[in-house]
């Protein structure tokens, strides 16, 4: 295992917050009290919650220690499939935290918040250019909410056409959020299988598409990392039956500057700014999931919308057909600032980013096939999906292999997704990993496959280098302990 980044070193234990602290300590100072105490109605007064009192150094050490138990993109390669864990530029953090943005109240009179409105307006135009769509709303707070927003737009569109539809076609490769989002607006997802190439066959859509069906949700590239080659044909079929095409654009990192989503027949698309456009993932969020639509769906976009009137920017509610609001204000503005900074930093090189993301993925695919079973042996886009088929002989599972990968100093790929591949190992390197890193990762996977054959126990007992060993998730779910 020498030559790989993983090793062990001194880290510090740290109890839970309320296992430390003493009443009367203080971790922050309050502004000076310059007014008298006002009487407060007895009957409304509660007992203070049981928060521990800590000093500032207690708090700083607590979270400094916790941070060192975490692995982030800044720590090393994080090839978590479908999540586009690319490098998050530091300057974007600096810009998002400029007081003019971070301290801005969302309800400022428009003449007092021109900077933020201009940024939102410009970002919408930039995203339209990158996707090939016509109009954009930044309001959805993450991809899943973008999907819901898109579904509601489709629903509103059908309604405006006086057409009642109850179903929506969702491929078996779709991300779980797709059917979940469709369900929220009352659509019954109809599952369609991908063909032996791992993509949707036009025929299978033709069979399912009817006047009862609102449309289809395609992810393109799909979650097998494959481009839906027949998308144009499929769109035609769906449109012919009066349906609409929704595209889950979470994987846009493969296609920037190459594919025109509009041309593929997509009517509604969502983007994940926290993936394709370098927003940091924050240990689970926040994200941002703008929806992009073709002209004829623009009236249905969420309100308010940012408008420009001879140099002045305004927020307008004046869209009677709008689906309404999905966020209290305008979505994750702070993430929009980062995406805006990222797009301006990259410019036309966004295309290069996509090309290199796809290069890295295909390179890994070629180097590891044979070592790991490759379910669909064809050119992939930004990610490639293997399985543990070859390792089952040694009673080694995908889980065992990725736990071992931690000891080698890499974050595991996405596992057991997409569901169509049994024991899936979904690897998305992204463009910000150098060839050296990618080669090290490949060598690690090969070494692990070797260990699986020679010394499988190494894998089953992995990880050994992390702060904790393998955790008991079953009993965690059986008798949940969710608060301390």
């Amino acid at each position, binding site marked *: 295992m020498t030559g790989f980044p993983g090793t062990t070193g001194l880290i510090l234990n740290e109890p839970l917050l309320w296992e430390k602290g003493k009443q009367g300590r203080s971790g922050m100072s309050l502004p000076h009290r310059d007014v008298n105490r006002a009487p407060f109605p007895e009957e409304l007064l509660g007992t203070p919650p049981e*928060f521990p009192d800590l000093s500032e150094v207690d708090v700083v050490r607590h979270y400094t220690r916790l941070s060192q138990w975490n692995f982030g993109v800044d720590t090393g390669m994080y090839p978590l499939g479908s999540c586009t864990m690319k490098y998050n530029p530091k300057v974007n953090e600096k810009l998002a935290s400029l007081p003019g943005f971070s301290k801005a109240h969302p309800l400022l009179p428009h003449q007092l918040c021109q900077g933020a409105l201009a940024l939102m307006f410009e970002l919408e135009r930039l995203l339209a250019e990158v996707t090939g769509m016509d109009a954009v709303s930044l309001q959805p707070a993450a991809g899943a909410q973008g999907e*819901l927003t898109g579904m509601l737009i489709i629903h509103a569109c059908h309604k405006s056409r006086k057409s009642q539809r109850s179903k929506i076609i969702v491929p078996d490769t779709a991300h779980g959020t797709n059917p*979940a989002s469709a369900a929220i607006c009352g659509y019954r997802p109809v599952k369609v299988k991908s063909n032996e190439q791992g993509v949707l066959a036009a025929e299978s859509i033709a069979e399912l598409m009817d006047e009862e069906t609102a449309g289809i949700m395609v992810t393109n590239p799909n979650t097998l990392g494959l481009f839906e080659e027949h998308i144009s044909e499929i769109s035609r079929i769906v449109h012919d039956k009066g349906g609409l095409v929704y595209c889950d654009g979470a994987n846009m990192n493969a296609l920037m500057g190459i594919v025109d989503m509009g041309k593929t027949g997509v009517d509604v698309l969502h983007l994940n700014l926290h993936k394709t456009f370098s927003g940091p993932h924050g240990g689970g969020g926040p994200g941002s999931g703008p929806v992009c639509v073709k002209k004829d769906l623009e009236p249905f976009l969420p309100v308010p919308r940012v408008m420009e009137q001879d140099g002045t920017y305004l927020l307008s509610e004046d869209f009677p057909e709008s689906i309404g609001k999905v966020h*209290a204000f305008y979505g994750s503005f702070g993430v929009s600032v980062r995406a805006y900074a990222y797009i301006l930093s990259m410019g036309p090189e966004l295309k290069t980013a996509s090309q290199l993301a796809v290069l890295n993925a295909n390179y890994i695919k070629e180097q590891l096939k044979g070592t790991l079973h490759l379910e669909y042996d064809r050119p992939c886009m930004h990610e490639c999906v293997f399985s543990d088929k070859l390792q089952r002989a040694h009673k080694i599972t995908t889980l065992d292999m990725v736990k071992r990968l931690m000891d080698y100093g890499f974050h595991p790929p996405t596992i057991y997704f997409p569901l169509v591949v049994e024991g899936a190992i979904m690897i998305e390197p992204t463009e910000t990993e150098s060839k050296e890193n990618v080669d090290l990762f490949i060598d690690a996977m090969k070494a692990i496959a070797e260990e699986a054959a020679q010394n499988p126990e190494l894998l089953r007992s992995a990880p050994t280098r992390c702060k904790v060993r393998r955790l008991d998730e079953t009993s965690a779910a059986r008798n949940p302990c969710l608060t301390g």
Partner: protein
Amino acid sequence: MRYLPHTEEDIASMLQAIGEKSLEGLFATVPDSCRRERALELPEPFGEFELCERVGNLAGRMAVSPKYSVYLGAGSYEHFIPASVSYLLGRSEFSTSYTPYQPEISQGTLQAIYEYQTLVARLLGMDVANASLYDGASALAEALSMAVRVTKRDKVAVSSLIHPAYRRVVQTYFETTGHEVVQLPYLSNGRTDFSKLEEIQDLAALAVQSPNFFGCIEDIQTAAEVAHQKRALLVVTFSEPLAYGLLKSPGSQGADIACGEGQSFGVPQSFGGPALGMFATKMEYVRNLPGRLVGQTTDIDGNRGFVLTLATREQHIRREKATSNICTNNSLCAVAAAMYMASLGATGLRELAALNRDKAEYLKRRLMETGAEKPFEAPTFNEFVVKFPNSFEATYERLLNKGIVPGLRLERHYPELTGHYLLCVTEIRTKAEMDALVKEIAS
């Protein structure tokens, strides 16, 4: 380009290993019909220096303190965030990691979220809190959907004193579901009128906000009785959780679900987002809970550790039958809130809440002296409604030019309330600032 490590040689040798001649060749599976006709029409790449200039100029065109005194609340609150919290939150082990699917390598995030869940549950007096939702508005929508699931009924009653934007988001989420949303009027004292509930059958949930949109503190006790009489769940929502540093917790007064906006706790206002959807409920409903949950467990050596748990509620397992479609949540905002609550402690929380209340009371009293009226009698926390004389329209514009934003016009949201304004005072507004405001208004 500094974000792209590949050299020409790297690209060449990798292409060779793949058996491709060019980068374009990698996209053979993309039909021409799908390809762009023209190259990306984007400005040439900005260097970091020019980028900071460009974005800095935009940020410079925003009205923020200390240059401006902004008396706006209404769902976004200007609280002081200590440098320690901003520093710790900026440590990239927190910010550049993702959902802790692999617990052994994510214990930092997991313990931090477990602690967040615990502090939120304690603050709201509930059994369990989730790992965060997007914001207060979607949290309320999720709460009402959950109540529908739990009670298997399809009507929800919503106080008209819940933040207008939250109610609109509920409308949007419910639009296509066929579930009915009934709005409850408000009383002259600035609290919700529950009487209308009498005639409603099959009620799944009653939702009230406290402090409500007028800043008034609702009678949760009564709300709970009314709701439970009808075997409906009581959902208590909020936009200013700091109030619970003083007020009785929703849980202690019978709330079944407590949810709302957590931005006040260490999350920058950031023009409204990212925010923090707080969501807590009783243990009996935990399997209907939307969003992620962190639980405590042990590793094979018996050491304490934390994992994501009860995933069978979630979309990646349950797909269309999931309790919610949420995947990415607002985890880093939750960690910020935990850091902030840890820094405050029980003692600091109580004192900070009192300071907010007392400063707001001070301004309220001073404004009354200028001839403004206090239309609603119910006690308030750090926000309150004032009715100004008609002449105020002009004053309002004058104040804007002087760098003061004297609250929010309510007429847009409540047409009957012409001349009514909602003002907010937090701990960072000084007496001097408030006196200046009063002076300006009086003049």
